């Protein structure tokens, strides 16, 4: 999938129109403008956009972000774009909790966003709304200006706006937006009169803004789906099969029904669909739902039910450790792989890597292992569904409201536009909130019970039913010539069936390059996990670069900078951008190293590791300082990170993502490992899968944002990629131990 990344406007050549309506004493301006067809949407489909802004007579503003927040800070960034072009006084804005979702039908009868793109994933939410939100803001501003011009009988082009006021050229007179709004809302403006600001005129974009929900968060207000209520709703907790393709062995239905507050039990059937990669994807796990008056009663009912399950015929052979062993064999033994019948794909080939390796002066051959990663969203999944004969209401936190509508339409047969989605703030998403299992369960139960039902998952459910980041074993053979220039790279990867990465550096930088992929037909469910495959890829690639540098007796930073020469933007066919630029990558390495005072010698037992990665249009590099002490104990001392994400819209939140994302990546490298045994997910809760605590995290992560006027690109995922390699490389620098297997905490104490 490729994306338009140009910052040009939507080409307002078609007639635009505005609708107005009264809204609680204030004007609701609904912009409904034909925008540009986006490259990632079906060609020819008019991509329309809309934002909601109420300007009240007292000049205050009510604003809603098109994109819900899950920690990526889009509820702040979205309004910033709009407020910038409107020239709003930020302090006069009140931010609405909810995010209205509007859909229209496309030619295939599927729902798509009627206005701006409300989805969040692939670090694209800001980028997808960049043009829409700015055009909308600029249009509103022009309407207000033209209204003021008409009242003063001067040319609109002579008027100036700032901080929610329109100023007369005489320097004396002014109108607040609130005074103009009601009449301005009825105006029609010419598209060519709508001008976007030049970047150097920005007063909000590029400045540090605080989370718009901050006060509600620190005072514990009910912002999340978990906190949502609905008139007349019942609660459901489901005893699900922890096995792949599992079957119910026994249950104590009577005992469950005797729990006070429990109303009934409902069997939930297993539901599957064919997946894009030829596998069967489970949409709903088989289970027994306990329907009760309260969540606590439902939880007690589930406990009393004592449902016991057994693995299905297909599922019981599934074992994550055995599969990792198989992956090792597949990457190390070409004959075995050839006879295995497992799909083998050459994904990328440039030059002749095999021949170049034969002629290389030095060849390193190393194999890197990564287990299944679990998601562990802090807020367990939940959804309220109220399904009626002709319509449905869904209340949930989900990354893709359009997917919710279409999948619920498919499950119920309801017309998509009769389905309302009410989005709530999400306690994390990390790609897991792409799946709709928790939504479909609520829909099914509401249909069965004939009432609104809220399904709430427990932590054990979330781990048992996770769609993991694929486990993988990556063998890299890299060759250097006599001058220690990298001339050949052969990456061979076997993994749990699922997505894979490869269009990442050092592709394009090494003349002979081969990437091969063996997709093991595992039944273990996989899905998107924050920056899918990037941390894993970079663990192998950036560890190997480090190994090569040490082999060549060169400084690991200098070695990388040399590899990035000549600085050049290469075509990039993968998701996330049309170009991948070695110069922008090099700058991030340099900046991170400069902040870390890279050249300063550290005392014995302390080491610096460096790693960088390109993810979804952005470049990030980190230097990590660790100490390895007595009994091989790891102490993470500090990190320094540099990011080039194009124009920095909100430096405050870019810094926060860089710090948190890198720590998430360190956590994955150190601890994240889910185990499947005999078809059962055996990792059940936080006592079995450790998550990094404050004492284990780097006390400080200093961040530098590379100055850029390029189109803004994502920051939610780019900080993850380099983390595992930076840590492994730092451990090597501190102690001489080369880590090639995650989780690192298996080998080193922390």
């Amino acid at each position, binding site marked *: 999938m490729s994306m338009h990344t140009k910052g040009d406007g939507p080409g307002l050549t078609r007639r635009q129109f505005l609708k107005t309506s009264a809204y609680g004493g204030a004007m609701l301006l609904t912009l409904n403008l034909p925008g540009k067809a986006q490259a990632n949407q079906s060609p020819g489909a008019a991509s329309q956009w809309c934002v909601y802004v109420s300007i009240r007579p007292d000049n205050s503003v009510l604003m809603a972000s098109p994109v819900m927040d899950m920690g990526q800070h889009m509820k702040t960034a979205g309004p910033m774009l709009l407020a910038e072009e409107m020239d709003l006084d930020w302090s006069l804005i009140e931010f609405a909790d909810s995010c209205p979702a509007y859909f229209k039908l496309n030619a295939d009868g599927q729902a798509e966003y009627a206005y701006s793109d409300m989805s969040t994933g692939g670090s694209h939410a800001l980028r997808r709304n960049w043009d829409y939100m700015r055009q909308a803001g600029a249009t509103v501003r022009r309407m207000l200006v033209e209204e003021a011009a008409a009242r003063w009988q001067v040319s609109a082009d002579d008027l100036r706006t700032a901080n929610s006021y329109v100023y007369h050229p005489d320097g004396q007179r002014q109108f607040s937006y609130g005074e103009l709004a009601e009449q301005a809302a009825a105006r029609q403006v010419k598209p060519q009169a709508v001008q976007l600001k030049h970047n150097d005129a920005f007063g909000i974009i590029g400045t540090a803004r605080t989370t718009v929900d901050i006060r509600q968060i620190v*005072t514990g207000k009910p912002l*999340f789906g978990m906190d949502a209520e609905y008139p007349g709703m019942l609660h459901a907790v489901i005893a699900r099969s922890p096995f792949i393709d599992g079957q119910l062995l026994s249950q104590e239905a009577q005992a469950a029904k005797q729990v006070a507050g429990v109303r009934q039990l409902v069997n939930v059937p297993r539901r599957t669909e064919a997946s894009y990669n030829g596998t069967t994807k489970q949409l709903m796990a088989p289970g027994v739902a306990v329907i009760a008056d309260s969540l606590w009663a439902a*939880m007690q009912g589930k406990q009393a039910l004592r449902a016991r399950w057994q693995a299905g015929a297909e599922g019981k052979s599934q074992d994550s450790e055995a599969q990792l062993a198989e992956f090792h064999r597949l990457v190390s033994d070409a004959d075995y792989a050839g006879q295995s019948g497992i799909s083998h794909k050459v994904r990328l080939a440039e030059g002749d890597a095999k021949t170049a390796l034969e002629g290389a002066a030095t060849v390193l051959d190393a194999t890197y292992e990564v287990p299944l990663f679990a998601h562990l969203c*802090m*807020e367990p999944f939940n959804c309220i569904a109220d399904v009626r004969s002709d319509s449905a209401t869904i209340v949930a936190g989900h990354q893709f409201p359009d997917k919710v509508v279409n999948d619920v339409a498919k499950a119920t047969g309801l017309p998509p536009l009769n389905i309302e989605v009410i989005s709530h703030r999400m306690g994390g998403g990390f790609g897991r909130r792409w799946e709709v299992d928790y939504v479909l369960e609520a829909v099914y139960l509401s249909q069965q019970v004939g009432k609104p039902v809220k399904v709430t998952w427990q932590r054990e459910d979330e781990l048992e039913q996770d769609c993991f980041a694929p486990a993988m074993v990556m063998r890299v053979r890299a060759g250097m010539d006599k001058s220690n220039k990298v001339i050949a790279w052969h990456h061979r990867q076997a993994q749990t069936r699922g997505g894979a990465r490869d269009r990442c550096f050092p592709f394009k930088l090494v003349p002979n390059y081969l990437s091969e992929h063996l997709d093991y037909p595992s039944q273990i469910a996989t899905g998107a996990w924050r920056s899918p495959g990037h941390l894993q890829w970079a663990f192998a690639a950036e560890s190997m670069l480090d190994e090569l540098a040490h082999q060549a007796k060169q400084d690991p930073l200098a070695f990388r900078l040399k590899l990035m020469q000549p600085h050049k933007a290469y075509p990039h066919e993968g998701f996330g951008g049309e170009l991948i630029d070695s110069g922008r990558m090099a700058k991030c390495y340099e900046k991170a190293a400069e902040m870390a005072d890279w050249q300063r010698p550290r005392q014995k037992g302390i080491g610096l590791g460096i790693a960088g990665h390109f993810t979804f249009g952005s470049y990030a590099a980190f230097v990590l300082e660790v100490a390895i002490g007595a009994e091989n104990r790891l102490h993470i001392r500090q990190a320094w990170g540099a990011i080039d994400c194009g124009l920095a819209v909100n430096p405050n939140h870019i810094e926060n993502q860089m710090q948190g994302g*890198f720590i998430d990546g360190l956590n994955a490298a150190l601890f994240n490992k889910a185990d499947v045994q005999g078809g059962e997910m055996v990792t059940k*809760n*936080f006592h079995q899968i450790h998550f990094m605590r404050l004492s284990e*995290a780097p006390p400080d992560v200093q961040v530098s944002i590379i100055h850029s006027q390029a189109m803004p690109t994502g920051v939610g995922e780019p900080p993850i990629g380099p983390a595992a390699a930076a840590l492994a490389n730092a451990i090597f620098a501190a102690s001489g131990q080369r880590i090639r297997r995650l989780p690192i905490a298996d080998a080193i104490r922390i």
Partner: protein
Amino acid sequence: MTIQFTLNQQTVEVAERDKDMPLLWYLREQQGLKGTKFGCGIGQCGACTVHYNGMAMRSCSITLGQAQGADILTIEGLAPSEDKLHPVQEAWMEIDVPQCGYCQAGQIMAAAAMFKQHPNPSEAQIEQAMTNICRCGTYVRIRKAIALAADKLAKEVS
């Protein structure tokens, strides 16, 4: 027979038959206090942290029976008034700690309890007190907010 305890400065009574109910579910479902969050149900993650007689405790692992006679404070009762937040909350706002925000009420309650015991906590005391999981990894900013809150509290005392 009823169970009695103090919740955010108010005396509450619950029926003896609910003695095994975890405090977390009483707060969320019977009192409508949704700031205390459910994360794991086994006392690991700390999203449900409240003050129990001034100490930070996981409310998923305290039964109502154990709350008998106790003084319970939740995030909703932490601020002295609507207009004046607790210094820890103010610090969290100024540093702009949260990402998703789900764990932050628990983190704030853990920090506020720590300050009762250690008005000027050492690094070791901070690391010992702050055991709540932040899945977004906001630990760097949590440390900064704790440092800022310590300054604010010192000024309030002086």
